[in-house]
């Protein structure tokens, strides 16, 4: 038996592949921005009083209630439920719920918007847990020092707590963003024209399924490596570059 692979037929469809990669990147970019903001907000709600101590010890999440946090209890419950629900269900089910389920509740979204929303919500939950770990690792003395300088709570959070927290967890955040980018391949299932759906399209045009998915797989691999480089660079240049020395 002889297997003949024909990559030329697949690569001849390069405009499709480029369009798909463009959609994947656009969705990832939008979901990253919104997801990280959502994650920071949720981490703020869930973090215990901006860290109580060294943060290396056990008991993350073990203390509830009187833990010095400033968020109201009901909000913590809602955010906690959101984070755990998202983290313990598959992305594809979340996507189907948003795309197929929400129209029944009167919210009708296009495939692209549903994909974006699902990705942002998904990343938000994971980012919340990652950033929370960074926030809880903030030494108590830094917060006390900020308070003794008469900084407001918001100032303390955005100027003292958040930058080093983000710096600490940036590698984990980068990995999570990449997981979300790879996860966007599922969005093709609801007819979003992203990269992996293009493999399906090419397959339906020339029956070269295996080759199409190999090409797309290699493209994902390259995107993944490039995105990691880019995010590491963004991290060291913008997110915590200025506070690196202090």
């Amino acid at each position: 038996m002889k297997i003949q692979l024909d990559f030329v037929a697949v690569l001849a469809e390069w405009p499709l592949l480029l369009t798909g990669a463009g959609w994947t990147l656009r969705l990832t970019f939008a979901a990253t921005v919104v997801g990280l903001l959502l994650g920071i907000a949720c981490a703020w709600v869930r973090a215990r009083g901006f860290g109580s101590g060294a943060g290396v010890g056990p008991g993350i999440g073990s203390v509830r209630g009187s833990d010095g946090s400033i968020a109201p209890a009901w909000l913590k419950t809602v955010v906690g439920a959101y984070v755990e629900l998202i983290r313990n269900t598959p992305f594809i089910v979340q996507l189907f719920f948003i795309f197929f389920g929400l129209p029944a509740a009167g919210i009708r979204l296009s495939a692209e918007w549903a994909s974006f929303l699902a990705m942002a919500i998904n990343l938000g939950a994971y980012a919340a847990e990652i950033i929370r770990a960074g926030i809880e690792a903030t030494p108590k003395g830094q917060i006390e020092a900020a308070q003794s300088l008469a900084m407001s709570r918001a100032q303390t959070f955005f100027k003292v707590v958040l930058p080093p927290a983000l710096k600490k967890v940036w590698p984990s955040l980068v990995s999570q963003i990449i997981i979300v980018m790879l996860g966007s391949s599922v969005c093709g299932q609801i007819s979003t024209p992203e990269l992996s759906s293009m493999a399906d399209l090419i397959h339906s045009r020339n029956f070269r399924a295996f080759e199409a998915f190999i090409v797309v797989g290699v493209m994902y691999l390259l995107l993944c490596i490039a995105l990691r480089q880019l995010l590491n660079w963004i991290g060291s240049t913008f997110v915590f570059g200025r506070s690196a020395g202090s």
Partner: protein
Amino acid sequence: MVDFTLWDIFRNLLLAGRWSVALSLIAFLGGGVVGLLLLVLRLSKLPGAPRFVAAYVQVFQGIPLLVQLFLAYYGLGLVGINTSPWVAASLGLTLYASAFLTEIWRGCVAAIPRGQWEASSSLAMSFHEQLRHVIWPQAKRIAIAPTVGFLVQVIKGTALASVIGFMELTKVGKAISNATFNPFLVFSCVALMYFCICYPISLYAKSLERKLNAQR
């Protein structure tokens, strides 16, 4: 049109849930075996082995699981094996899990001080004896929590097997929602079921982690 009661929906989803669980176990155990072999290969001093394993991990972590499943599905067909969704999904998920597990365990082995390797080799232990008597007992303790945590990821990964026609929870959920025209309810049930499987495991992993931290 046949009317579906809530119980009908739930019962069918429960039945489908069996296959999700079975597939998860296959992928987790298969991935564990392959991952362990890769780890040993990486720890051995064979030329090129670390680079090979690193490339393997990069490929399987850098390509979406969905694409891997399609590759397994069409690739098996290409080499003449009559592909059933079972075989393709098991193969795809096993390879996926092996890449992650070998990377997790590599980190656990790396956490063991170098002196342990040196001491055991100065006692004239062979590579096999070092792994068996010195490294394994220590790495095992650190590895349990992240490994259990990864099981959740495998269970969620099986949802993607629906795209190659594997009749598991998500696929059956989609079929039922097409039959009942009530996707909101059906997908809520599907999500709830995944949650009921995954959340206890997540909690267990978290408590293991806490216990390990307390011991240190």
